[in-house]
């Protein structure tokens, strides 16, 4: 069972692994989860995110979509300014009326992948983690959707706590996801309902862009996205992968 993290502690950045009492640094020190600052659990390269990759979420958004869904995955890119670790703080714009979380299975690439066929795709996965990819829908415009003002804000993509080895996630397409806001379940789904599953996404993306170790695919979110407010604690859980905690603060 290997769950790896990167944390800041006592003036340095450390690699760590999961431990019954929290986490263990490479040098052997065992620490509680609350003693460290959690960073994204790996060196993140290109961040690829999927829109509308669960059928139920597509229905939820139907009102604002101005074109029909097509067969090609709706993928977009994000930049590292968006990333924060477990137990981080995400800032909510003062003027926003609708900012919501998105609990997503994140697939981390482990080997250079170019024109990979579906049947071979899983061999290119290093592991999995949890992502919470916030959107501020007030700023939605119909130009290069989803526009960066909605989806590429500083600190609006929490990721972690752990990078979990593929060996420890035997079936990434049978994982329950849920989001709790202040302890109450607000979003629920299962990765079996992914429209484009993990090998399909790797085949699709690697067909036109070379994926490299550290690149990450955020596979989309199921239905149940609701507004969050300053002070809310938002917890995204994926069974067998992790429990990612985030707190909303006002800008």
């Amino acid at each position, binding site marked *: 069972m290997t769950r790896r993290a990167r944390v800041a502690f006592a003036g340095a950045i450390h690699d760590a692994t999961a431990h019954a009492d929290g986490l263990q640094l490479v040098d052997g020190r065992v620490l509680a989860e609350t003693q460290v600052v959690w960073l994204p659990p790996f060196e993140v390269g290109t961040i690829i995110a999927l829109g509308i990759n669960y059928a139920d979420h597509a229905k939820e958004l139907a009102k604002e979509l101005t074109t029909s869904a097509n067969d090609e995955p709706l993928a977009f*890119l994000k*930049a590292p300014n968006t990333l924060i670790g477990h137990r981080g703080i995400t800032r909510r714009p003062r003027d926003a009326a609708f900012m919501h979380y998105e609990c997503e299975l994140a697939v981390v690439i482990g080997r250079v992948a170019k024109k990979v066929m579906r049947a071979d795709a899983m061999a290119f996965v290093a592991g999995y983690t949890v992502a919470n990819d916030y959107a501020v829908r007030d700023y939605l415009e119909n130009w290069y*959707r989803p526009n*960066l003002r909605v989806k590429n804000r500083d600190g609006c993509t929490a990721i972690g706590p752990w990078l979990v080895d593929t060996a420890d996630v035997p079936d990434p397409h049978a994982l329950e996801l849920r989001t709790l806001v202040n302890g109450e379940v607000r979003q629920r789904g299962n990765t079996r309902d992914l429209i484009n599953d993990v090998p399909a996404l790797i085949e699709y993306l690697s067909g*036109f862009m*070379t994926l490299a170790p550290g690149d990450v695919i955020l596979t989309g979110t199921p239905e149940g996205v609701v507004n969050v407010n300053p002070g809310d604690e938002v917890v995204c859980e994926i069974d067998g992968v992790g429990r990612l905690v985030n707190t909303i603060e006002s800008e």
Partner: protein
Amino acid sequence: MFSPPRRGTVYGSLLNHPDALAALGAAVHEPPYKAPPKAPVLYIKPRNTWVKSGDAIVVPAGVDELEIGATLGLVIGRAACRVSEAQALACVAGYVIVNDVSVPHASYYRPSLRFKVRDTFCPIGAFVPRAAVASPDAVGIAVAIDGEVVHRASTAGLIRPAARLLAEVSAFMTLAPGDVLMLGVAAGAPRARAGQRVSIAIDGLGRLDNPLVAEAEAA
């Protein structure tokens, strides 16, 4: 020579030339857009797209021509977060020529990544320090294909000149040292085919030269 920053991000800007926006005509008010853009329209050219002058641009199998998007890139020297227009250029370390290559496509609503982010689709030229260019808002850009100039543009008269673009982008996301923000491509971007050689010259920045090679040959 530009060396890609390990964690830097290259951002493209769309429809920042008045003629590029005007070319869409009344369509900007119609579905799927429904309204002209309010905030800067941006996209990301990821690391797999970055190449340098002299490297081949690979024309994918099944694609006849690529669109050559010649633009000036601002290279960020210090973090730009909520900077004013007056402070913005102080965050710029210098400039690069960028060739924002695309597979031609008609819609700006939700274009597929496969039009913009294929390997080699973002040649970036040599870094030129800010002091070497009098103003980023008054440089001429010329695109030559096989030695013949086929397109001329200028950074003058942009909807958002460099400082304003940087200020408005930094209002919602931080640009970090090493990031590149393109000013945008003018209307009528030329197209080129495998076997041709594209050269972009920008006043004060020199040239960015790249041959186009068919995918099968490049493999």
